[in-house]
């Protein structure tokens, strides 16, 4: 007697066309809790943790934002292997604003976000016509080369970097600023990717030629996606600059390229929530493994391979399926 697994959607949907039909608290809670739990978590966690784990939470949020920025690009059909470019650009922009021109961190931060976004977009503009792995290769090379350029030309402090950069006014502002940005980016850009605008971006990923046929200028849309994504990355860079009070060549380090990709792949690509979840798993894990030194990066590499091969949908999609569907074993007829 053969059996198969039957999956049935639960009959509760927030949107069926335009009609909202929620009849009980239970149904409302069923729909709201996946959104409310992370929001409450983001708000309460900084209060519960000690000073050390607050720092970890900070880098979790930073990597979650970088993973979100990677995922937005990936959903628009551009696979970046160099998030460090965005991170480093933002970091150096903010560092320069504060170190040379003496801007207050709260002024330097937003300007560095926009400035970093514009610079990265301009840098990658000639590459936008490439697709698939051609784009990936170039993004892999650019941050590594920028590192060498800074070393060679000795601009912005060269190998020494810029130090004595002002901090944000208070620790709590730091924590809740990054948490607020993470929440805004996560829910805002999720909504954006579900709108018609996001549909165009996903269309470019799926079949760019038919999007061109629909009379849409895909380069303009790709430029916008690139700007959004690189601005998020630049913000994290600028933020970290003000947290560490230092910016230097490590801002272009490979770790800022790899960890976000690993987070997005482990959590589940194509869905910004997956990227966030991945960062919340991988960064604390790597913090626990910190004692083992270089072994961490080996683990990232292996994680990437295992998840890409064995669970390509990622953890988030797996959980989502379990949450939204009944599963039962039924007999196979005939």
């Amino acid at each position, binding site marked *: 007697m053969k059996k198969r697994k039957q999956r049935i959607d639960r009959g509760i949907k927030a949107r069926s066309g335009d009609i909202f039909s929620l009849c009980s608290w239970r149904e409302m809670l069923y729909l709201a809790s996946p959104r409310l739990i992370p929001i409450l978590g983001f708000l309460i966690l900084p209060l519960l943790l000690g000073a050390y784990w607050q720092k970890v939470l900070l880098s979790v949020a930073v990597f979650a934002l970088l993973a979100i920025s990677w995922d937005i690009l990936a959903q628009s059909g551009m*696979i970046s292997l160099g998030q460090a470019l965005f991170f480093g650009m933002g970091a150096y922009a903010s560092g320069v604003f504060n170190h040379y021109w003496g801007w207050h961190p709260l002024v330097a931060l937003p300007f560095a976000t926009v400035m970093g976004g514009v610079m990265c977009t301009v840098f990658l503009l000639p590459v936008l016509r490439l697709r698939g*792995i051609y784009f990936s290769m170039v993004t892999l090379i650019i941050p590594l*080369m920028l590192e060498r350029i800074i070393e060679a030309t000795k601009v912005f402090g060269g190998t020494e970097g810029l130090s004595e950069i002002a901090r944000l006014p208070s620790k709590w502002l730091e924590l809740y600023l990054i948490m607020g940005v993470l929440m805004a980016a996560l829910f805002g850009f999720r909504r954006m990717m579900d709108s018609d605008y996001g549909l165009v971006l996903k269309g470019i990923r799926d079949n760019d030629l038919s999007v061109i046929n629909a009379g849409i200028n895909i380069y303009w849309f790709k430029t916008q996606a690139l700007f959004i994504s690189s601005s998020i990355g630049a913000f994290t860079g600028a933020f970290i600059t003000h947290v560490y009070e230092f910016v230097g060549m490590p801002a272009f380090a490979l770790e800022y390229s790899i960890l976000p990709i690993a987070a997005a792949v482990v959590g589940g690509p194509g869905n910004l929530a997956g990227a966030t979840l991945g960062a919340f798993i991988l960064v604390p894990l790597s913090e626990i493994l910190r004692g083992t030194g270089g072994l961490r990066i080996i683990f990232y590499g292996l994680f990437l391979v295992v998840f890409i091969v064995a669970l390509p949908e990622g953890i988030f999609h797996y959980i989502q399926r379990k949450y939204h569907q009944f599963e039962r074993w039924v007999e196979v007829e005939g």
Partner: protein
Amino acid sequence: MFLGTVVYALINSVILALMAIGFNLTFGISGVANFAYGALYVTAAYVSWMLLNLLKLPYFLSAFISILFTTLLGALMYRFILLRVRGQALSEVIATFGIGLAILELFRYLGFVGFEYTLPVFIDQSFFILGAYVDMQRILIVIFGALLILGLWVFTHHTSLGLAFRGIAQDERTALSLGIDSDWIATLAVSFGAGLAAIAATIIIPLGSISPSEGYSVLIKALAVCIIGGLGSTGGVIVASFIIGFAERFTDSYISSHWTMIVSLAAILIVLIVKPSGLFGEQKELEERI
């Protein structure tokens, strides 16, 4: 000074071509961008170092074994990992990148860093050519490089396996209908690419020392050469490595050695703006740019 620079630029170009040709072969035939390429290069060097220094095997035997080992490693990597994500460019890139990262960082973690990790030169001797001292190893690199490229050309144009390789590269479905097993050919392409990386490592490493960061820089150089030459085009690789090789060596002599890497970046950006498919990448133009 000038003639000496030309001689060294020539050698540098051949080194670049040797580094890039395996990556190019794998990509041109199977479409797999093997980002573990640098790791395979370094692995080959470490394996022959270990055979030579720990097991005290003769040098040429250990080099031969390490080339075979790396070739096999490439085949296994394709069979057990890449085959499952075949055709999904993103997954292939991430998987190979993950493998490469794990291998390189493993070597770094195990402490394989330092000047003692180097391979001996084949023949210790140097000559005076056109106003510059050139050691035997560099001359051998040029000879080996020329032979390897010639051998590769003969292989792809005059053997049935080589013709099958090109068939798959040109049109996979038609090749399938003629009885060429595309999975098997892709396995061979990845493993041959790994083997070429190992050969390049065996010849080039005696000039410097083995280190994990060498893996990253080989990958970057291979990518740079392949992007400029046009991915999948052997002629393009040779021309591009001469362009970069000469440009690098001349900036090194006449400007400053800090700027050598920047020349490749500038070259890539210019080529991408003017002709995104690379200098000789016309055949695949439709696929890579819109």
